[in-house]
């Protein structure tokens, strides 16, 4: 045994560079597979653990206070499908902003809850560095979800300024907690505040009652939730449907699991590339080595070593190499897993209650050892073909008398190209492995590149795929306001380029064909839109037409020309699908129809939102301020306004306005008219000055929601591109080195004939180009197909074909460059040494 190990060790020492490269590949393979398996096994337990730790309910239904009735709680608990339930309340708004560290206002949906109310929903385990005494001294404490800490970089003790309209509310961050629902910037961040601060905010933000429950349906509660909403509305005759929100654990879990699994699957695909690379390397290294050392092998056999001994010396050599690679890989995995967990925590905004388990690591290590041994054994077994005498004759008898390919007498142009092509055909088998390796790498590179360019192209590409209008400001009006009147008025302002009325997102409509509630986007004429593009079909023009998102189209196989049914309050209408729209926002559940189309389903429908497009150079935040000042969005400001007019009439009007503001804020009154007799004068007025309910800077919200994800995807895809390129580089280097070693004699002879090193390097490098070209074409096609597959889940991702072609050309040049540099050892071949050996 010792003598066999000695042979193996001698071989390792002889090929240090190749050994190093193989160790790197095994290490990467180990790292990727074990981390992926670790991730896959953890992801299954992460959410159950999270639920267990927070003791959170699985389903939330949020109902605005003006549509709430306490009897709903009984209806909920009486349902036999509900296992347990509770009720609580919070304040929520989609019009809140916060001041970032540069003092700039950033949009962020926020919910505020008191600690007692929070405890009815889940157990908030606070993480803080402050003592109780320190917290008691803080005037406006606030506890935030971990995602604020991880994603926005807040620390305990930091100041947090919430902006609502013209009002600013300052808090001090006193701690963080894990919350399963209501913890993302996209859905809203739930902050725990003191009872006093809650009451202050109550005057400003909309109060929602929350009904929470666990059911035994296992479908994420959507169906049950919809039935409950129907039941609530039937009971109370209040308009619950237009203002309720539903959150459930399964949807949030599925979203995170989908992206995490997608990432892990890409990692496994990368590992597959590396495995192919390892197979190629081991096979060619052993074959090259046997050919190189054939006489020595003959000598060993002559002095008593059996071919089995020699075969096992190769197996042991590769076992040693893989053991080193595996150990480094385990080290890397142990270091990478916490990073992956942490990345998942940052991306999901949750604490991951999971620990590294040894079984995936051991399983991967065992698999790699077995796999490497098998490949090495199968290849090294070719030693059997060389008994001593045959080996002394350098394996004579192992000749090919195959068909002559590309005879040189037919050479038309460069002899070097011809010789390269001859070499390619003569090494066809070798090229199959190489093709597989470059193809998989090309798939990974093209896929990563398309994703990278899409997500790295600032927010422009994402915005174009948003599937909603990206005006500068989205103004939601009070129910009483006339959107067209308001739009016409706003359009007269010098800063405004255009104002288009549309539907808000408050009322959802059920698309019966997929049993999902959808956000309707209604416009009088879709030609007025600037950011809604049908990728297939056309805009709806008539009242029986609509467009759906590509996600909906794919998941339910609904195509242009198909008929679908919409259901609103049990009113059902059929529509023809005229177009498919890409939609990265609202979870891809938008439908697009004309105003007449909306009225066909909801006869009382009137647009309540206006998209305001500003002229170039106008600051959206300044204009928002002006708009809110002018149109009295800040009802609460009015109710707190202490200023009085100069005349008696003015003072009466101001008081009337305050009363109106109070009624609207406290009781959800939508329209008020008044007439006051003051002496001989009748002072009249109404609430039309309070037209604005909220103003949103959609681009800012998009930035907050998606820039973190875009950055994470850009980093991940860059990493994949680099790893793929590294694998291709290593493979080509090793392949070329092995080719040079195997063909040392031929190359020497050609040098003797007058071929220069550069010409020979070109020939050798060019040999791989047909395989590389084929691989890159196939890899590109599969890569694009993979992007299109993903498109079905997350929306349309534009593929810049010219950029992909440039990438392919660069990839081919990269392959040629690596092969050319890899063949540089040709320079070291001395003709003289060869001739006199």
């Amino acid at each position: 045994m010792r003598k066999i190990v000695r042979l193996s060790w001698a071989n390792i020492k002889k090929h240090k560079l190749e050994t190093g490269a193989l160790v790197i590949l095994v290490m990467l393979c180990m790292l990727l597979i074990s981390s992926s398996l670790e991730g896959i096994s953890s992801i299954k337990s992460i959410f159950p653990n999270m639920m267990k730790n927070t003791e959170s309910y699985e389903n939330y239904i949020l109902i605005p206070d003006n549509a709430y009735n306490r009897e709903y709680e009984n209806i909920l608990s009486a349902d036999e499908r509900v296992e347990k339930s509770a009720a609580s309340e919070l304040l929520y708004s989609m019009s809140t902003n916060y001041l970032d560290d540069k003092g700039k206002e950033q949009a962020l949906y926020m919910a505020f809850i008191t600690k007692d109310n929070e405890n009815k929903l889940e157990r908030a385990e606070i993480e803080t560095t402050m003592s109780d005494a320190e917290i008691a001294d803080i005037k406006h404490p606030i506890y935030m979800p971990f995602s604020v800490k991880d994603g926005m970089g807040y620390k305990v003790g930091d100041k947090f300024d919430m902006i609502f309209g013209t009002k600013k509310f300052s808090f001090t961050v006193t701690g963080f907690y894990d919350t399963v629902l209501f913890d993302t910037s996209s859905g809203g961040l739930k902050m725990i505040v003191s009872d006093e601060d809650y009451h202050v905010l109550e005057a400003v933000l909309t109060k929602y009652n929350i009904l929470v429950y666990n059911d035994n349906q296992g479908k994420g509660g959507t169906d049950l939730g919809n039935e409950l909403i129907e039941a609530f509305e039937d009971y109370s005759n209040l308009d619950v449907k237009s203002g309720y929100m539903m959150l459930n654990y399964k949807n949030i879990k599925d979203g995170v699991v989908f992206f995490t699994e997608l990432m892990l699957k890409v990692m496994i695909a990368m590992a597959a590339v590396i495995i192919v690379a390892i197979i190629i390397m081991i096979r060619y290294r052993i074959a090259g080595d046997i050919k190189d050392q054939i006489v020595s092998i003959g000598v060993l056999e002559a002095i008593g070593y059996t071919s089995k001994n020699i075969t096992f010396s190769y197996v042991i050599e590769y076992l040693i190499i893989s053991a080193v690679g595996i150990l480094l890989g385990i080290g890397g995995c142990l270091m990478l897993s916490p990073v992956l967990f942490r990345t998942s925590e940052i991306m999901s905004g949750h604490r991951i209650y999971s620990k590294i388990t040894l079984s995936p690591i051991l399983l991967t290590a065992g698999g790699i050892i077995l796999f490497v041994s098998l490949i090495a054994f199968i290849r090294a077994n070719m030693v059997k073909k060389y008994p001593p005498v045959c080996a002394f004759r350098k394996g004579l008898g192992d000749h090919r008398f195959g068909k002559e390919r590309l005879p040189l007498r037919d050479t038309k142009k460069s002899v070097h190209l011809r010789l390269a092509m001859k070499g390619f055909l003569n090494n066809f088998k070798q090229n199959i492995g190489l093709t597989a390796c470059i193809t998989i790498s090309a798939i990974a590179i093209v896929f990563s590149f398309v994703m990278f360019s899409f997500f790295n192209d600032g927010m422009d590409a994402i915005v174009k795929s948003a599937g909603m209008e990206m005006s500068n400001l989205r103004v939601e009006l009070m129910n009483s306001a006339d959107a067209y009147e308001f739009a016409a008025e706003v359009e007269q302002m010098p800063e405004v380029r255009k104002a288009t009325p549309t539907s808000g997102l408050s009322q959802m409509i059920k698309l019966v064909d997929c049993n999902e509630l959808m956000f309707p986007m209604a416009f009088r004429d879709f030609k007025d839109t600037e950011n809604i593009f049908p990728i297939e079909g056309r805009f709806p023009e008539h009242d029986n037409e609509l467009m759906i998102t590509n996600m909906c189209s794919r998941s339910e196989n609904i195509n242009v020309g198909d008929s679908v049914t919409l259901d609103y309050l049990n009113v059902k209408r059929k529509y023809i699908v005229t177009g498919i729209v890409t939609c990265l926002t609202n979870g891809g559940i938008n439908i697009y129809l004309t105003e007449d189309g909306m009225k066909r389903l909801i006869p009382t429908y009137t647009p309540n939102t206006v998209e305001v497009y500003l002229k170039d150079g106008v600051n959206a935040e300044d204009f928002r301020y002006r708009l809110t000042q002018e149109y009295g969005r800040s009802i609460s400001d009015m109710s707190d306004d202490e200023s009085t007019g100069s005349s008696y009439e003015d003072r009466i009007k101001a008081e009337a306005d305050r009363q109106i503001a109070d009624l609207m804020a406290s009781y959800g009154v939508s329209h008020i008219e008044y007439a006051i007799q003051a002496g001989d004068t009748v002072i009249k007025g109404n609430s039309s000055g309070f037209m604005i309910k909220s103003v949103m800077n959609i681009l800012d919200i998009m930035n907050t929601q998606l820039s973190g994800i875009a950055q994470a995807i850009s980093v991940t895809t860059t990493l994949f591109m680099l790893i793929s390129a590294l694998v291709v580089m290593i493979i080509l280097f090793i392949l070329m080195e092995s080719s040079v070693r195997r063909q040392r004699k031929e190359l020497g002879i050609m040098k003797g004939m007058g071929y220069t090193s550069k010409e020979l390097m070109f020939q050798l490098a060019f040999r791989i180009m047909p395989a590389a070209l084929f691989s890159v074409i196939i890899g590109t096609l599969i890569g694009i197909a993979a992007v299109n597959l993903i498109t079905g889940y997350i929306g349309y991702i534009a593929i810049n074909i010219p950029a992909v072609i440039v990438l392919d050309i660069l990839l081919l040049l990269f392959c040629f460059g690596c092969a050319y540099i890899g063949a540089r050892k040709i320079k070291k071949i001395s003709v003289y040494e060869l001739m006199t050996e």
Partner: protein
Amino acid sequence: MSTAVLHTEKLCKTFSSGGFQQHVIKNLDIEIREKDFTVIMGSSGSGKSTLLYALSGMDKPSLGKVFFGNEDISGYSNDELAVFRRKNCGFVFQSIYLLENMTVFDNVMTGALVAQKNSADLVKKAEQLLEKVGIKKECWKKYPNQLSGGECQRVGIVRAVINEPKILFADEPTGSLNSASSHDVLDIFTELHNKGQSIVMVTHDVKTALRGNRVIFLSDGTISGEYEMPKFGTDDVKKRRDGLQDFLDRMGW
């Protein structure tokens, strides 16, 4: 008297290994004349092959200069030497060194196409040369390991001369052949010489050396003697052999 096609000035070649230096060629001045069939002889280790490879640009001298005509090639880079070789030199090796993965015809064409563009004339020339050295047409598509040693060496000679080199270098061209094959190969060399081809050949075989018209005897890296003969076939064979043998005896052969 012919003009010198190649000459050296104080040519030295030293090999170093493990701190030990071996001076194989020492301050050697030699002149290779045009149209001469120069034979380099000497005992083992005398530096014959080293000299041949230094003269032909296969290897660089450690010191001194090698002139091809008036052109000093001793300072050339490896790639410049390769270009020099393809234009001016042909090689015939003891181990033949045909490319085993190529057919006979492709072996010849590989040598031809490195120096000139393909043409119908070039293909025709290759065919004529192969026929001339006795390689039948049915062998042209065969691989080297399907031919005998003598046939392979004849293919090697065709490959070496197809570009009409200014000098043909041969290192023990019959060293691995049987006597019948050796005779055939040497006849080809004689014929080439008769047509005016300059040849430099290293050998330790007297029979082979008899084909030349000038014999240079190397001893310990320096020229210890030189012997001139008429062209092969123009004089009495016995007298020629005795004369050469006498020279070699004097050189201590």
